[in-house]
């Protein structure tokens, strides 16, 4: 396990925890962008740099689309919530980390023997945390961020299994499509909130 891949794995764990714990879009989009960089580092272990870079560019494009839309829709809004909920999500995140550390060696041995353990662990960490997030939030933008993270985790593992230009292209379309759907949801919710504010002012 090289230093680079270890660093990438650590970054994935930290960013996945950050996305799970915090609800502020600024923190989450930044963490997602860093997570894509770490995922890219793991993909380079299986793919040539030229092809792996597609993943990070797509991820950053998707993140930028979501971040810029959030900036437009909620420029001043900051998420405030009780510390207890953040603590609870932190604990559930730790549980996911533990589960993944326990199951990944046997999963790698039985299902993906041709892939490095760190790749399997990194990919599963992204998938596991995203699933936990999907189960704990019904916010449209958080759902999209989790789905992007989940797809990222899958792509990290799948890159070690298959290399196809068409598949890469189609996954780019799916990721950008997910980001666009996210933008659509954010615009909808933002417009609705603005409309409610205007209606309240009129009253």
């Amino acid at each position, binding site marked *: 396990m090289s230093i680079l891949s270890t660093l990438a794995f650590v970054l994935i764990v930290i960013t996945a925890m950050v996305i799970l714990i915090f609800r502020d879009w600024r923190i989450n989009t930044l963490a997602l962008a860093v997570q894509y960089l770490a995922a890219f580092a793991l993909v380079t272990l299986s793919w040539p740099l030229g092809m792996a870079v597609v993943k990070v560019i797509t991820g950053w494009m998707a993140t930028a689309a979501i971040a810029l839309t959030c900036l437009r829709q909620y420029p001043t809004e900051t998420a405030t919530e009780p510390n207890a909920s953040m603590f609870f999500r932190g604990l559930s995140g730790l549980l996911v980390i533990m589960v993944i550390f326990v199951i990944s060696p046997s999963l790698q041995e039985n299902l993906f023997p041709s892939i490095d353990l760190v790749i399997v662990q990194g990919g599963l960490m992204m998938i596991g945390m995203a699933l936990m997030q999907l189960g704990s939030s019904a916010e449209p933008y958080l*759902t999209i961020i989790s*789905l992007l993270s989940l797809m990222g985790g899958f792509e990290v593992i799948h890159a070690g299994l298959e290399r196809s230009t068409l598949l890469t292209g189609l996954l780019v379309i799916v990721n950008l499509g997910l980001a666009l759907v996210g933008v659509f949801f954010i615009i909808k919710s933002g417009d609705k909130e603005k409309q409610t504010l205007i209606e309240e002012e009129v009253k």
Partner: protein
Amino acid sequence: MSLSMPLLWVVLPFVVAAASFAFLNKRILGIVITAITAFGLSLLAILFPEDLTLSIGPVQLVFTESLAILGRQITIAYEILPFISFIFAVTGLWSLNSGTPSIPEIFRPISLMITALLTAAMGVEPFLYAALFIQAAVLVSVPILSPVTKKTNPGILRYLTLQTLALPLILLAGWLLTGVETLPPDSPKVAQTTIVLGLGFALWLGIFPFHTWVPMVGEDSQPAIMIYLMTLFPTTILTFSLNFFDRYTFLRTSENLYIILGTMGALMVIFGGVWTMFQDNLKRAFGFAALAETGFSLLALSLLPQGGARWMLMLFPVRALGFWLWGYALTQIEKYADSLTISSVIGLARRYPLLSSGLILAQLSIAGLPILAAFPIKINLLTAVAGTNQTIGTLAFIGNLGLFLFTLRLAANLVSPKNKDVSHRWSISEKRFEYIPLLIVILLLVILGLFPHTIFAKITDTLTAFTQLQ
């Protein structure tokens, strides 16, 4: 001149859809363009010559089945054309129903895009990449299910999440399948692969316990759109699933798999049927009825060695017509009722008897009432299921009664007077353009019920694409 078939059924509808975005506010023009494109391509698919050569006057167009794209291929085989014809016909039919103001203008171009993507899914090589096209179609469907003017429903998020979760599982199953063919049937890898694949399909089809989004989205979205999507997606996914049975002997010969499919099918039918029976919201009731119909398709799949694929394919057009009538009637009734709940439609049949009859007949046709379209297929299917496993057959039969009972409850409310003290005279208040399409489809449903092997039997030719399943 040489062309490839995917250019016609994948690229062309996409180009037309993209062009249609330019005149979204011209409703009639949009309907005409979408309907002509969809029906034209449907007709072309059904009449396409076997030698793949079209002669238009002095011009001879020679078609090839494949289109190379990024090192792989999209192949529209001649054998799959009946199914492609069917999905384009469904889109054409729904585009005719898209003039109602409650249906967003983007429905028409997006429906063409979805059809093109699902066609590509049926033809992409390696066939597992179809999952990505289906996912793209799901993503494209979100704006029509959840229009900008409405708040995002949690059901939509659940729909998007569960459909997206299916994608990695199907792709992973595809990779696992490559090594499984050579393993003995009792190898743990075979079971692992089957589980991953089964989970992927369960998520796609909304099989219990991944079904929760169906009634939620059904309740929240415009009924025509939900019904259109519930016609197109499960149909394509189920037909796509035949690829697996055709290519992998261990799946085709696994008796346990057929038992699981039968049990899940019966559970879906009974679950969907019983829940339909107790619904008060007509749109939500459709969601549960659609789940029961997925159950019938699974029951047909469980009889694959006895020719179940033929029944499954034959159910598609009659279901599509029944669903269309259901959606059409609901869309029209929505204009006249305060909401689509049973309490809001009390006495509606006294003012709108034709629309009300259309709604009742659509439900009865789906439920399999004799002389209506689904009856000959469902009775054969249920008999065969009961012959194989009596418990599953009985459960499926009981489940199917749910929709019947719901329809009776709805009919009783539709005809009873809203205010018991005031006498309401019966009158036909529908306009001619509202009830003519309804009458045509009802007539078609009766003809199909009386002569089941006439109009739509050609869809079973799709099976020729799956050489091991004939």
